[in-house]
């Protein structure tokens, strides 16, 4: 294992520790007694308050509370959801897969559409098509995803009976949510890929390849695109996290099951153990994605491993 890989692994552990402390603190930072806030109207019942205190260990010293909580999490015990009356783990089991499907469908959509627009714009630099592409990309970035989702429902489910208003978990039910989720990222990718391609075109070996008479297509595929992909990969890693948290809004719009909608409902219901579990999982997945991107780097660009 190279020094680079070891450093990345150490950084991942440090980050995971930091994330866990922050997530642990969510309940402890709530002003007032979290048990009373959580119970709301039932706060008058002292036995319920005592039960929550016992479950969260609120009467113990902070480091002990943290160790207890982390031990539980590592053993796969995320606690009990008060608002759903079941363990958080069984909630996760129901909601995790639909969110992953939506996230990856959104990412695929944003990379394909963004890639096409960005590459076309770069190849047609400073012409009408370029300007038009960038105007479209700007609109994609600016339109709120939840409004777009509602418009898609209005047009393709209400006016035209092509889709169901409430999308199921079927493949067809994935189309509109993935579109609404991915369009903003598609606009961002289009702009990013355009400038990435333009920058790669100015690299010395690309100029050399062109000068020695290689065809435009060959230079583009072998030299320009390969160099342009590296920064895009980093962005895709970051975007996976943005898309994952973007499901919070999209799943609500389309009434889809998933951890994003579950998170919003748990926040509104003051169901803190569920909120903690979801935030921890989303943040950790995000950290893990960026870790994977870091490890892919040296494969695509051997110079990084040498550093």
């Amino acid at each position: 294992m190279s020094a680079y890989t070891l450093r990345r692994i150490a950084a991942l552990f440090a980050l995971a520790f930091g994330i866990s402390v922050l997530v642990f603190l969510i309940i402890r930072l709530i002003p007032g007694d979290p048990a009373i806030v959580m119970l709301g109207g039932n706060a008058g019942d002292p036995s319920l308050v005592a039960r929550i205190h016992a479950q969260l260990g609120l009467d113990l010293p902070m480091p002990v509370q943290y160790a207890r909580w982390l031990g539980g999490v590592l053993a796969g015990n995320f606690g009990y959801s008060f608002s759903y009356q079941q363990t958080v783990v069984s909630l996760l089991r129901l909601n995790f897969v639909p969110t992953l499907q939506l996230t990856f469908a959104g990412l695929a959509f944003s990379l394909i559409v963004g890639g096409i627009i960005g590459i076309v714009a770069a190849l047609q630099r400073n012409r009408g098509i370029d300007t038009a592409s960038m105007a479209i990309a700007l609109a994609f970035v600016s339109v709120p995803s939840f409004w777009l989702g509602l418009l898609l429902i209005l047009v393709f489910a209400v006016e035209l009976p092509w889709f169901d208003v409430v999308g199921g978990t079927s493949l067809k039910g994935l189309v509109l949510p993935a579109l609404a989720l991915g369009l903003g990222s598609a606009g961002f990718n289009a702009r990013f890929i355009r400038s990435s391609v333009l920058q790669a075109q100015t690299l010395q070996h690309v100029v050399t390849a062109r000068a020695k008479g290689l065809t435009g297509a060959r230079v583009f595929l072998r030299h320009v695109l390969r160099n342009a992909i590296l920064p895009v990969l980093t962005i895709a890693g970051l975007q996976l996290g943005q898309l994952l948290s973007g499901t919070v809004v999209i799943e609500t719009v389309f009434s889809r099951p998933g951890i994003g909608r579950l998170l919003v409902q748990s926040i509104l219901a003051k169901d803190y153990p569920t909120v903690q579990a979801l935030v921890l999982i989303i943040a950790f997945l995000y950290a893990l994605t960026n870790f994977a991107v870091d490890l892919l780097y040296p494969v695509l660009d051997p110079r990084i491993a040498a550093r």
Partner: protein
Amino acid sequence: MSGEAQLPLASLRASARGAPPVHWLPRALRHRSLAAGLVLCIAILALVIAAPLLASADPNAQDPMQSFAAPSAAHPMGADAFGRDIFARVLYGGRTTILACAGVVLLGGFVGTIIGLVAGYAAGATGFVLMRLVDLLLAFPGILLALVVCTILGPGLVNGVFAIAVVLVPIYARLVEGATREVRHMPYVDAALTLGASVPRIIAQHVLPNVAPGIIVLTTTWLGIAALWIAALGFLGLGVQPPAPEWGAILNDGANYITVAWWITVFPGLFLSLFVIGVNLVGDGLRDELDPTLSAR
């Protein structure tokens, strides 16, 4: 997104010493996207400020007879379930959304800049600890971090502004810290120190002018995103509480009735989109003007 935040310092320095300030307005207007963005933003601001002149005075006034009234001369954008005028709600709601997102970038930008200056200038252990905290906050996807703060503070507009400002703090801190650290050991800063200049003076005279273009670009970028997130919180029920109008909250009102009254949903979203497009056009224009290395591409 944060990838764009770190502008090359050399170019920032070049532009800080660039064209004399007298000419910036005409030059800005020659830039097409900047001019278009300014026109769009000013038009929306004018409509929103003139709300009492253009629409009925009370955006919360209910009229059961007008429930779900379609757009007409009396209600240019129709009415919602309670018969409230959507035109009035969109104009008054825009005030809330725009003020809130301005509050977000002012608050987050100010605190982040201070932290960045301290971490970059003090360096050493203080800088190290501050920047590791910044790294930790940056490890959360932005919206998720805002939702965490919302969970702790509870729903509400002011809490929402705080929540999104928290997301901006590490982003500004990182930009400013990097630039500050770079300027800190420039020969002219050493010279100023030797001549007895105080630390606040060095920061005001030498560090801030170098960081300013980056901060301006970051602020316009995040103003648009903050508007979208404020509206998203309103839409989810975590921001403005009913019956107060706000673009996202009106969208939430309309979402349940999309099959019977499209106008409740379409108009606030349209205004929000146009506002964000305007802000982003201004941001792109400023980026071109302030960072020659990007526009040269």
